[in-house]
């Protein structure tokens, strides 16, 4: 599987997780609210993976 395709599957999974993240983590406070930490974590992970993905994808285009 080409590099950018592999990243796109991971991004799709992250996209679905982020879309469903907030309502599924109601009211858990352990120092910081877990839903807030998850949102930030997803964003940072998304950013890192996306950087690899988009470079690969645009290199592929004519």
């Amino acid at each position, binding site marked *: 599987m080409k590099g950018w395709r592999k990243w796109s599957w991971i*991004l799709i999974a*992250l*996209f679905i997780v*982020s*879309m*469903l*993240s*907030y*309502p*599924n983590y*109601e*009211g858990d*406070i352990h*120092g*910081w*609210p877990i*839903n*807030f930490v998850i*949102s*930030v974590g*997803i*964003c*940072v992970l*998304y*950013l890192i993976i*996306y*950087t690899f993905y*988009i*470079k690969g*994808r*645009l290199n592929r*285009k004519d």
Partner: protein
Amino acid sequence: MSPRVLVTVYFFAYLAITLFLGWLGRRHMRGATLQEYYTAGKSLGPWLSLASYAATNFSAFTFLGSVGMYYSQGLGYASLALGEMFFLGILFPTVGYKIWKFSRHPEVVTLTDIVARRYQEDHLVRVLFALANIVFMFFLMGVQVVGISYVIEKVTGGIIPYTAAAFTVAVVLIVYQGLGGMRGVAYTDVLQLCLLSLTLVSVLVTIFISFDVSAVFQRLAVSDKAALLSAPGPEGIWNSTYWVTSFIALGFGWFLWPHLWARIIASKEKRSMWVIPVGTIVGKTLFLVIIAPLVAFVAADLWPTVEALAGYKPDQIIIRFMFDYMPIPLAGLMLAGVAAAAMSTVDSLSLVLSSIAFHDLYERPFGTKLTEAQRTKWARMVTALFPAVATLIALRPPALIVGLVVDTSYAAFTALAPAVILGFYWPRATTQGARWSISLGLIAAIVIIGWWHNPFGLNVYNAFWTLVISTVVLVSVSLITRPVPQDVLRYFGLSQSRVDEKMH
């Protein structure tokens, strides 16, 4: 020197520098052509394009409004940031890349040119698309002028009153846009982005120096503000249906805002197509996902009621936060950053709306023949009109119409999304389909937001209805009407013959 006087000095210094940058943009212009004025000759490098896109994206609403929204509605508001960010990631290398690629044609000035070409140069599609952009973005521009004037009056302690602030900003905008066009605006965007970035980092550092954030969360969790931290929030809005539908609709609607696609068209290199989204996602994560909620929750802990805000409104919390917790010289500079956020949006909006009004609604439909010098002269005059009229509206806003139009801004652009996106990917999308999809989508947006709130009691975000309706209309009408000719499809890489060639 008192803090208020210091802020006033900073503000005028900032205006002087923007005027200088507008003049610099004029010096660097490559000829007096319409393309140069509106799109900087499609020659902006990746980093300049990123600075321009990011600064334009950070509006007064982002800076002031998002903190107020987290303060009132709680963490559920992160749906906007996450939806915009994830859809930016998806739409930039796909739809964004296509916009960039098809805008390389020398006659393309606006996205409307590309959409009209896809739908057989249909005048109705062109006019509907152009009018939707102007109507639904113009009042948003007026709101930004209100935002800037509001901030300037507040932070200068009335040294510059609201009306004077509105006029001053309008005059400066008109001068530097007139001088440098898109190139001048892009240069000022770099300054505005530097100020904004400095502001964001300073606010984040201040939060961690001045507060024990864990203790803030622990106190909020056991107070009557605990609902801020969990679904569906204190106002009961953010249930799972509303979250998911707003996530999708906000992402689609926002991507097609005209001041944002104008940056794609102005970009010179393909490399911009990854520099812009990655940089924008960094900015959105930093401010909308981390800083804005942290400021809002610290504020909810410090000032739990509107009365405790002592004269500040929820969307002015970040101003009070800066004055109370940052060294005054730094706070003054940061507050100039707030004004920069709003100005960078207004200048970009007025330039792109002018290009749509002049090029899409006048030049193209009427087939006007003007010399390049005449076109540029007219473009400058039309561009000056937008901030001037927006300022007049900001002085006496007709509340109902403005409120309705601003509320429909996201919804209106989701009504345009199917015609653009399916137009690039679905060969069967027809001109009739685009006409009906845009028209009925816009009508649905106005009806649902203005009168028929929460249709069928499903708690679906209003712009999601618009997206569904315009998509269903586009698909249904396209399937029963005549396909667009093969030569058009071939131009967009959609013809069956090309698919067959690829398969063999």
